[in-house]
């Protein structure tokens, strides 16, 4: 009989921080500039240049640490990790090994199996490397140092996860915390959040760890789930065949749904870490720490509870709304303008999410202004447009952030509120449909729906169906 195995997973998550400037120089962190335009002597490793720490990086790292229940090393420092590679202009990366800023924290995740704590071993600050571009035609590679020196934090978990589901829940939790703190946008696809998966398996009930591998190149939650499944099976097959698992770093190919070895432990480099003498130790005073603690924004759990209490939003809806910082921000901003939380929630939960799905986008991609959604809600409330028209207008807002008032005006979408005009049309409809009138009068009340529909058609949708219904009832009595 086959043995039963347990998967043991720990994660190393790199998050690009949302600072305006780099970690050790004043260069912009903006994405997508021409190669080597966001550079200076410091981030290109010119001789004699020196790093100067960006305070905001420390504050973001502290904020993430506090939000993940970490201890803060109030005296911490930077170390150099020495290795040669052309994307690394100094041939050392400034990172933290000996005294990382945060340590010994945890987050709580929820899966189908219930709630569980995942330990955080440490969080440290470091700099990103540049990017190598290999010339496919020529015999050379080019280096772009725009990303060199962009601040990162690396969040190292304890080996506390046992399934892909837990890993996804953990990543989602981290993503939400960091987005709520405003410390990063955490986009996996764009690389502002990257996860390396350390995985080993052991016989169920065993209390020793198996040999682990590290999996890199995981660009989506789905890829992570597939890679975990793939690696678990690969290790199980090896053990079942009586072969050892080799400690190595592997690269996941999500198209082929399999992984390839990158380097084994034997090739592991000696990074010759030592304290960076160019940077002084960071001393975090009690006051500074307290200040960061006091400035911590409302996080997801608190927000969710507040939505239920303050706005009377049901649990499920509140979960969706707070499941994205962007969605929650739009919800609150719009509600603040129009004071109609339920309506705002309905639009976001309904049309906004439907359109996102249709466009294959995430809530982070929402780009319309709360003012326009608030105006739209106002227009429907006042009966200026009906619901059908409103949905059409919302699509415009969603894609173009159009001003609904102007759009309704320009396209003549206002409901006809002139009762005289409406009565005239209805009279014509009643006259043209004697059968339905007779049906209605004989007790088939549903027949009125057909007449309303005919009227709306004749009005090209620009009537308030409620008003039409009312007039029809009057006329047919």
């Amino acid at each position, binding site marked *: 009989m086959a043995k039963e195995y347990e998967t043991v997973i720990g994660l190393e998550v790199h998050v690009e921080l949302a600072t305006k400037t780099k970690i050790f120089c004043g260069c912009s962190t903006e994405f997508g500039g021409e190669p080597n335009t966001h550079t200076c002597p410091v981030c290109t490793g010119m*001789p*004699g240049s*020196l790093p*100067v*720490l960006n305070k905001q990086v420390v504050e973001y790292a502290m904020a993430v640490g506090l939000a993940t229940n970490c201890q803060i090393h109030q005296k911490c420092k930077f170390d150099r990790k020495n290795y040669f590679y052309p994307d690394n*202009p*100094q041939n*050392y990366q400034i990172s933290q090994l000996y005294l990382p800023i945060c340590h010994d924290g945890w987050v709580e995740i929820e899966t189908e199996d219930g709630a569980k704590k995942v330990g955080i071993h440490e969080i440290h600050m470091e700099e990103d490397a540049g990017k190598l571009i290999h010339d496919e035609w020529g015999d050379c590679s080019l280096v772009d140092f725009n990303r060199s020196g962009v601040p990162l934090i690396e969040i190292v978990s304890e080996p506390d996860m046992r399934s892909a589901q837990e890993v996804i829940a953990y990543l989602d939790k981290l993503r939400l915390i960091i987005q709520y703190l405003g410390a990063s946008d955490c986009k996996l696809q764009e690389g502002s959040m990257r996860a390396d998966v350390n995985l080993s398996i052991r016989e169920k009930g065993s209390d020793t760890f198996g040999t682990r591998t590290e999996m890199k190149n995981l660009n989506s939650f789905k890829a992570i789930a597939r890679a975990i499944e793939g690696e678990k099976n690969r290790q199980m097959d090896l053990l079942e065949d009586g072969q050892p698992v080799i400690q190595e770093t592997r690269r996941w190919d999500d198209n082929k749904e399999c992984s390839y070895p990158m380097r084994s432990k034997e090739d592991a480099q000696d990074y*010759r870490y*030592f304290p960076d003498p160019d940077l002084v130790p960071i001393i975090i005073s009690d006051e500074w720490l307290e200040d960061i603690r006091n400035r911590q924004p409302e996080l997801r759990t608190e927000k969710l509870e507040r939505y239920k209490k303050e706005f009377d939003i049901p649990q499920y809806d509140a979960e969706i709304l707070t499941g994205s910082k962007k969605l929650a921000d739009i919800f609150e901003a719009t509600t603040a303008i129009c004071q109609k939380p339920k309506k705002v929630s309905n639009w976001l939960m309904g049309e906004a999410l439907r359109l996102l799905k249709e466009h294959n986008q995430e809530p982070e991609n929402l780009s319309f202004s709360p003012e326009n959604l608030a105006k739209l809600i106002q227009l429907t409330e006042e009966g200026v447009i009906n619901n059908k028209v409103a949905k059409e207008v919302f699509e415009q807002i969603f894609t173009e952030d159009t001003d609904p008032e102007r759009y309704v005006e320009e396209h003549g979408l206002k409901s006809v509120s002139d009762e005289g005009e409406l009565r005239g049309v209805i009279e014509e409809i009643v006259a043209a449909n004697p059968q339905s009138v007779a049906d209605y009068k004989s007790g088939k009340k549903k027949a009125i729906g057909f007449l309303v529909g005919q009227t709306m058609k004749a009005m090209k949708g620009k009537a308030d169906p409620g008003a039409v219904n009312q007039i029809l009832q009057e006329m047919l009595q």
Partner: protein
Amino acid sequence: MDILNLTAVRLSEKIKNNDLTAIEATEAVLKQIASCESTYHCYVTVEEEKAREQAKQVQKRIESGELTGPLAGVPVAIKDNICTKGMRTTCSSRILGNFVPTYTAGAAEALEKEGAVVLGKTNMDEFAMGSTTETSYYGVTRNPWNPEHVPGGSSGGSCAAVAAEECFYALGSDTGGSIRQPSAFCGVTGMKPTYGTVSRYGLIAYGSSLDQIGPVAKDVTDCAAILEILAVYDPRDSTSVKREDTDFTSALTNDVKGMRIGIPRDYLGEGLDLQVKASVELAAKALEEQGAIVEEFDLSLVEYAIPAYYVIASAEASSNLSRFDGVKYGYRTEEYQGLHNMYKKTRSEGFGQEVKRRIMLGSFVLSSGYYDAYYLKALRTKALIKQAFDRAFEKYDVILGPTAPSTAPKLGESLKDPLKMYLGDIYTVSVNLAGLPAISLPYGIDNQNLPIGVQIIGNSFQEKTVIRAGYTLEQTREWQMPDTRERGQNNG
């Protein structure tokens, strides 16, 4: 008037008094360079035209009253590990043979702001690693007192240039004695400030936690005036210190009455040349006569300074020098197959023996398994040495001793036995390990007609006490520097 033997401060006074112009001073020194360089080789790069142009600009700004500082209009030489925008900066290494910085170091910037005329870049031991200026890729510098002898190092070019009157003052850098030891060997005055006093921005790092830029000049007055300009807080250097007490020239007073001066007994023992020892004793006596209280004491831990220094400096250097890889700037090997071969060949060809030796030593002491035994132990030793100095400064205002165990050795003698060469740093390295300020000034000539230097060490941020003691001692010195040009001709 003999322009060349003026001190920097005196020259500037004369320029500001319209006795002569910055242009004339520059021409005079360029002429001296032209006639002496073939003998001494103090410079890696001389920028005649740039210097002339800068002299004109500076002269205009002096005449307009814009420049009034104590060094306005004075031509300066800058050590070739201090970046100068648009001016080749090689560290005397092949690997930076074509490197022209796009920025100027904080220290050089401060001088230019005060109206310095930059003549060029002085020779040095490659990447400041050496004590003789013989490890330069661009050839040795010779001692202006006797060209058969080395000028010391690593700031040998700067010190020789001041001695040979090929500049009026110079910038050096001091990681383990690299300003003070060549100053002693060349009979000039050099000062290493408290760590953090002068910006390291633009100084091509050797041992980052020990490196300090400092002045090399003809006397203590010049040193104080130069340091006053150099000592500005620079936010581009995280180790730069904001100081209020940088009015160093105010300490140029002939007054050591009641000053407590300690001489480490450990500095006077085995290995010290007797003539050097006699000079230290003479200096002690002279200071005593001026009212100082001088006594010998045991500093302790002196024998651990050199191993600790070479472990720490080499460790930092092995990492600092890894950026020189042929990818971004500097030398790249002609032919190579693939990235790693390129790295290997570039660095094998680009670095000299002494640099490679220290990179290997530094890489070794940082390797996993050796880190604790060597690097951490060296850091602990460094802390203990600092404590030993702290204890000494509870009792003494300054410490007096020799700068180097001997006078300048002959060319070719030192590199044969690197360990012996390293031991020559015994009186200087502990000052860097403890981050202290110290000055070396000439106080005697040995029987080979070579100058002898004595060193005055102060507590952290006590440059003024060092300057006061140095200035007072200087006044008691009967010896004058002989005429350089005659020396050059006689010996060359």
